[in-house]
């Protein structure tokens, strides 16, 4: 059997997850190319392919006109991976989903211009097509992606943790943001990243989305108990998890 053919596609996103692929360094990247064949990757190459073993789709589904392109990728690919937060959960793009006036706010009276045709909400790719696996995170963790690729190469379901980021902070003995007078969303955020943000001195913003059954009520209470104004506490988790909140 030849090497699996892999394609990368981008929708509404910053394309940072694709950029992360360039950050493996020489040895790891060249080794990766021994096991997969990158056949389509608009950002880095001009070639195109008919059939794909794995399609990695970056970016959110935000315009009805994108549905056809997504369906085309789905039709060509055996396995579809939503690649990064925007594709997997809507990511940062969904931060304005709860607003009803964002188009008018940004475009004024030109809001109905056909150029700006857009869904009201930024949605994960799976809102348009079936997604087999999700790579979480903003940006995605490039080593977790390697593990996922390894699993798929061996026909094994990739393991993605479903416990909160607190587990990983504690494992690396990071001081809790709350103990430093800050706030954090680590208690409701899905782990797997290794908790780099609190270790770097900033709160977790839950870029990998919520764990299954996040305790949103307790989150709001804890934030308020630690001095956050109520309105901010109520809206805090919108940054990366707006599509996953109970009020979404």
């Amino acid at each position, binding site marked *: 059997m030849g090497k699996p053919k892999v394609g990368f596609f981008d929708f509404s996103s910053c394309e940072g997850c694709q950029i992360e692929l360039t950050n493996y360094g020489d040895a790891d990247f060249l080794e990766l190319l021994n096991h997969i064949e990158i056949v389509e990757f608009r950002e880095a190459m001009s070639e195109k392919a008919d059939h794909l073993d794995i399609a990695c789709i970056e970016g959110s589904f935000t315009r009805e006109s994108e549905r056809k392109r997504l369906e085309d990728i789905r039709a060509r690919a055996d396995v579809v991976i939503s690649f990064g937060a925007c594709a997997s959960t809507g990511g940062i793009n969904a931060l304005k989903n709860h607003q009803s006036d964002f188009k008018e706010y940004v475009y004024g009276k030109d809001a109905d211009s056909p150029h700006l045709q857009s869904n009201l909400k930024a949605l994960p790719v799976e809102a348009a097509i079936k997604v087999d696996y999700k790579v979480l995170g903003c940006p995605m963790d490039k080593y977790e992606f390697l593990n996922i690729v390894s699993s798929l190469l061996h026909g094994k379901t990739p393991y993605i943790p479903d416990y909160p980021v607190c587990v990983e902070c504690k494992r690396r003995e990071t001081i809790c943001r709350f103990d430093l007078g800050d706030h954090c969303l680590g208690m409701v955020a899905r782990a797997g990243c290794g908790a780099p943000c609190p270790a770097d001195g900033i709160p977790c913003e839950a870029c990998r989305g919520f764990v299954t*059954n996040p305790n949103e009520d307790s989150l709001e209470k804890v934030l308020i108990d630690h001095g956050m104004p109520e309105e901010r506490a109520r809206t805090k988790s919108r940054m990366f998890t707006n599509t996953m909140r109970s009020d979404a």
Partner: protein
Amino acid sequence: MMKTCFIKDQDFPVFIKNVIASENLIGPIAKQNKFVFDKLDNPEELRLDYDVTILPPKKYFFPPSQKLIEFDGEKYHDCIDPKKIILFGVHFYDIKSLDMTDYLFTEGKTDMNYMANRDAATIIGSNIQNVSERAFWGCIGREVKPKGHDGFITRLKDGSGYVYEIISHKGESLLTYGIFRDATEDEISAATRVNEEIMLECEARLPFPTDQLAERVRAEFNNEELWNELAEGCFSCGTCNTVCPTCYCFDVHDQWNLDQKSGSRNRYWDACLTSEFAKVSLGAGSSENFRSTRGERFRHRIMRKAVYLNDKLGGPACVGCGRCSTSCTADIADPARVYNKIMELEKEAEVAAQRSQNIFMPKQAMILRAHQATATERHFTLKMADGSSVHFEPGQILEVSLFGYGEIPIGYASSPTRTRTFDIVVRAVGRVSKALNKLDVGDSMFVRGPLGHGFPMEKLRSQNILIIAGGIGLCPTRSLIQYIMDRRDEFGKFTLFYGTRSPSERMFLDDLIDWHKSPDIDFFETVDTAEDSWDGNIGVITTLFEKSKLPSDTRVIICGPPVMYKFVIRELDKAGIPHDNIYVDLERRMKCGIGKCGHCQINDKYVCKDGPVFPFSEVEDLEEAL
């Protein structure tokens, strides 16, 4: 291997520096506003004044992620590769936790992935200089003592230096790195004092003995409402597990390397509070979670800590470090709070039950043993006919009755550490007691209790104790004597004076022989008058004061005939014992046992309800008291 050395304060940094130069030295260091165990690069980093570290030292033996096997195609090998380390400055509660994980990883089949690291380590304990806010090591599992360390270093209060207690050869080998000499007696006792005193600084957050915990917590297992309420704010984040020194659950995952041929099998710390922990896949995307609610997961952790492992570990699987409590963002993990809540439930239930109960209704008790102790005193061992256990404090009383004869108050004469049975001694002096004294094994009595207040155990713990018992006063104090003997390490110097009018009135003869032999108790006895065959002391009980040196911080318990009190207290005044530290066990005519009937009233106090044990300072100026 018990040897105790001393190193001067000014020599200590050089000692640490020398250890760093030759060994892999791990100790507590500051990390922003917290502490962690980490490798030391210079002596200044060592912070023996730490209160508690974020993670316990188990991370060196059972790391958060650990390779178990490396494979390459069909070839594979294990990854046991212990590194020699010296873990320095470990608090006693963390040593206890390592004792527990040592047991758990070696029980049945030994896990060498843990034990090899453990064997390669030298563990040096150190005294606690600062108590962390949520710690409760002062009151949980005190019956379990640390044992897995190789040495223990105590910084003396006066700053002169450190007393180093050597426990093993590994501990002894450190002597070569510093200027040590043998510690003097004074230094050794100063170190003992430092370690005793810090126990008192740890707030007594569990106002009940921990041996009652397991049973009561287990009794609430099906109280779904309780667990859901306790876990309402829970994030299922597993932080309480991850920072716990006695948690040791793990998960195992295989991982391929980039070459897609080689890889490793690794284990990771897991946490039973996370929702995934008890989830099993049933295939085709469906799954079953055996602990699907927050309340169930919360309960499981409390059961693991307070109930499930107790038989194996000899006490709760909790050392009172307070890490789970301080690191829980929702602040719901504090075990002390949970235990107290459960104990209060019991109390609430008791109150409710009491209201629906007639206070005069006794319960049947069966006589297991009966023994004529003296001509007039008969010693009974009883158990409740319904099989229920008895919970009382030493010094408390119960009402004992026989229908048709009546009811009399009697003190418990056995230790509450034995909950299945209890002892009483009945002196045949009245209608009821004479009838009771005719009973034998298999007969029943009818009892109500415990009643009143016994000896103030929370004030006696860690102290030097003197018990002065005159005549039948040995019966209620025997309860306390047995309690102290059962938990000898929790108390300081322990002395007993026992006086009777003549040798024939001596009771508990087997006990007396044991106590004379035991190194755990300084036992002095006297009789007022005796035949020539008596080779012990003759004279009133105050003559015993010449025989024993009495530290002025001793706590004294007096129980005996009223005439004895005045003379004994005069001697205690001479020894400079404050009256706050003297407790007297008063005897009055008690009828109801619940502070209603008025017979035992002294001024505004009822002996049966407020006593029978009182601090002497509370009753000395009370008319009619003594």
